[in-house]
């Protein structure tokens, strides 16, 4: 209210200061892979130690010299969040280079941002090794494999959100930072203060991850290391695996089932998990987004299963097992594979392709357009049909018991239009690099939707190693835009933003 005296210029000092704090924080994250490195007697621990020291020193220096004094304002929040993700990806790529795993920084950056944004598009492994210039995942140092999954896990619930939960330095600006990174709707906040909300979300995230780890670990085909990596990757709806053949390599009904279940849980709004823990079961069952999510999952799984049973697999059991896993993997934007859906009948493949555009729930770790937006998009569109019949009719858009504000549905429509525009721009850029039509469409939406495996040349059995360098940068940008839900990144490209 009394901000009359602070000008409208962007306070770059504060921004650098806060970025410094986040970078310092990243230093701690970089120390953790040293543990598996020491357990497995790998040289790579040095790479992590050097990277961590770099993060500590740069972070501390920028924080000390540019100690943020003022609260962040909205414009600064957009810059901070976008640049946090850029810097995390830039520095997070160091271990890949320093350990000698990769020789190209482009590849390292691509792998890191794909990890952080929980996309799961990788330049390693894959089962068809043709054109594979990089190592197989199974030949990589364990600590590097761990770092990939850990990046997923950090990015899943959000690095900025984690920082808000732990660091008290952010003040009131914290809430705007939270909203710029998380897809959680403000009205969904389970507690009044943003720091508590962030803490609760991370506790639940940590709790479910642990449960998932234990359920995987008890299976004889998984050792503790594989169980941890898959737990991280599933809960973040990421998709990096420890095997070149992804989850399919374990070939176990138990593992498939457990992972399918936890992918589903990771695609649910985490506030609902919180409500369940508080015993508000009926409240949760009433939730429109959850119902819609379940409905979409059921319909698509049923259709795919029948299509596969009729035309692809011999037994209904196989069709159900592989159909469900693939459907949930893409619906939640995880991107694990137990079967190569690019070989499926066109009907099933097209259903999978549609799922690239759905995503899970708001407030979950999944990417994509997300269920609440789809509900509102669909309801608004159907309303126009009713309106055509009764031009004077008043048709509010309902979501459960509440009425959706026209301003909200307007934002969602523009989100949708921008989403499709960015998707098309991505396809255009890739086709300009002489990538074929189907592969370009697949790669663009798989990156923007944070899915990972695409269709065409970049399907679940392949990888992104043979993508041109320029293409990798384009996809990296798409991943970030998708993860931060468009507006946070896209406003930085508008001239209005930079005008004084």
């Amino acid at each position, binding site marked *: *209210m*009394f901000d*009359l*005296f602070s000008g409208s210029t962007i306070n770059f000092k504060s921004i650098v200061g806060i970025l410094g704090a986040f970078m310092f924080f990243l230093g701690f994250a970089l120390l953790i892979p040293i543990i598996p490195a020491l357990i497995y007697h790998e040289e790579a621990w040095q790479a992590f130690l050097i990277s961590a020291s770099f993060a500590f020193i740069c972070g501390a220096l920028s924080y000390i010299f540019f100690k943020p004094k003022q609260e962040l304002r*909205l414009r600064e929040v957009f810059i901070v969040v976008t640049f946090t993700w850029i810097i995390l990806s830039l520095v997070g790529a160091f271990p890949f280079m320093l350990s000698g795993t990769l020789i190209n920084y482009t590849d390292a950056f691509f792998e890191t941002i794909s990890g952080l944004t929980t996309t799961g598009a990788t330049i390693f492994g894959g089962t068809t090794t043709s054109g594979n210039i990089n190592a197989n995942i199974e030949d990589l140092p364990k600590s590097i494999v761990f770092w990939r999954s850990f990046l997923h896990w950090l990015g899943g619930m959000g690095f900025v959100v984690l920082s808000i939960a732990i660091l008290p330095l952010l*003040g*009131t600006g*914290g*809430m*705007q930072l939270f909203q710029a990174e998380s897809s959680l709707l*403000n*009205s969904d*906040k389970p*507690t*009044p*203060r*943003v*720091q*508590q909300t962030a803490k609760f979300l991370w506790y639940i995230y940590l709790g479910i991850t642990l449960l998932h780890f234990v359920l995987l670990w008890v299976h004889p085909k998984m050792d503790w290391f594989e169980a941890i990596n898959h737990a991280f990757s599933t809960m973040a709806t990421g998709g990096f695996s420890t095997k070149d053949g992804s989850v399919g390599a374990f070939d176990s009904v138990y593992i498939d089932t457990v992972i399918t279940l936890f992918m589903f849980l990771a695609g649910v709004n985490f506030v609902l998990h919180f409500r369940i823990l508080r015993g508000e079961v009926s409240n949760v069952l009433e939730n429109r987004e959850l119902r819609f999510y379940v409905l979409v999952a059921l319909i698509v799984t049923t259709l795919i299963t029948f299509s596969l049973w009729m035309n692809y697999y011999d037994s209904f059991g196989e069709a159900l097992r592989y159909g469900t896993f693939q459907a949930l993997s893409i619906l939640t934007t995880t991107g694990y594979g137990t079967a190569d859906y690019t070989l499926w009948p066109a009907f099933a493949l097209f259903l999978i392709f549609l799922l690239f555009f759905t995503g899970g729930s708001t407030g979950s770790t999944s990417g994509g357009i997300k269920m609440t937006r789809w509900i509102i998009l669909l309801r608004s569109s159907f309303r126009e049909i009713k309106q055509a019949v009764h031009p004077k009719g008043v048709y509010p858009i309902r979501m459960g018991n*509440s009425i959706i*504000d026209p301003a909200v549905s307007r934002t969602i429509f523009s989100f949708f239009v921008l989403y499709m525009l960015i998707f098309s721009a991505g396809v255009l850029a890739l086709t300009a690099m002489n990538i074929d039509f189907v592969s370009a469409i697949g790669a663009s939406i798989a990156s923007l939707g944070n899915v990972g495996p695409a269709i065409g040349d970049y399907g679940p059995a392949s990888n992104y190693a043979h993508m041109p360098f320029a293409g990798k940068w384009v996809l990296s940008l798409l991943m970030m835009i998708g993860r931060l839900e468009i507006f946070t990144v896209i406003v930085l490209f508008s001239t209005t933003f930079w005008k004084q």
Partner: protein
Amino acid sequence: MKIVIIGAGEIGRHLSRLLSEEKQDVIVLDRDGEALAEVAASCDVLAREGNAASARDLLAAGVKDADLVIAATSLDEVNMIASMMSKRLGANKVIARIRSDEFTDPDTPLNPEDMGIDVMIHPEQSVAQEIVQLIKRSSASDVLNLADGKMQLVGLRLEKNSPLVGMTLMEYDRGFPNLVFRIVAIYRGGRTIIPDGSDRLLGNDNIFVIARTDTIPDIVKSTGKVEQPITRIMIAGGTKVGSHVARILNQENGGWNIKLIEPSEKGANQLAAELKNILVLHGEATDPDLLAIEGVQDTDAFISVTDDEESNIISCLMAKHLGVRKTVAMVSKPQYIPLSQTIGLDAAVNKKLSASNEIHRHIRQGKVLAVSSLQGIKAELLELEVGSRSKAVGKLIHKIRFPEGCIVGGIIHNGSVEIATGQTIIRKNDRIIVFCLPQSVEAITSYFK
């Protein structure tokens, strides 16, 4: 503490800001989604859209296990219903803003307790009290009583020709060895500075000083101002606030000569019938002829409290131009308060700010002495008891490393007050008066625990 604020108007917004900066769990309930969005965008609170008079919406906002419910919508009736329901639903304490005077009457058939209201706040009375304080301390821009009036916090504006301009606080302190005082804040160019001894005073600074009440006139004198008692007062506007001010001054009977200007004939007649020792004038306060005839040039204080803030500001400026020493204008936008001195008013008051300050005072259940807007300065005054395990016990004040943004103003030791200097020792069970920035409230509170 879980606090539900009903109403996202001026009061609700101000309180949301103060309380969320103190890291309280705040939930704001309002029917107006846009007003809510504005609050949610600037403060760390949970905004809930809903009707304050609906039990379902109150429950959804969490009044059931709330430590405090503040009913601060613009409608008395809604506030009453919301208070009654919240109390029935289990709210621990309820504060309501009620504009009507009906319920303060001793023989009212409907007590605040009947309506579940623990504390009733009248914005008009709050602001009238504030104005009366300002009149009693003619050269101050702000006045707050501390420790039952034994100490005061006063805001003083340094003129460019003040002898203090250019001095550091340490030099100022040495220059007046027989005065014991503590400068707790400097308000300069829109910023609040918690100073230390090396800070230099500049012209146009507003300094906030804590001192024993009897030494205040000497301190005022040291700034180059002359503290002349105010005797002739002119009040423009027979509004609720204006008549409250007149009534309070009338009751205190401090030898004041009061003139009250009211534009409506009916209103003027009513006021004249009620206020016997006051000259009620029927006319416009912006009419220079009327002001001249009634001798505004010989008036000591001019208080403009009509419902039109522009005419309040204009008539105060006119009075100032004619030589009135102290002008107080009531403004309806709290955003104007920081500007008031820049444009030449001595003080500006705002109903909603006074009301929210008074509510905030009650939230600390007596722990906070007073929180005032202090000409728009963002700071709080706390009274804290020193716990036996606090790190401060037994130390000299200048040896203590306080959390950033805090300064100790005074100490109450066994009922006697003492102004804090570097040589003061803090003992356990002392009550300490601390002036601090809102973001440091938590740190300093736990420091003295």
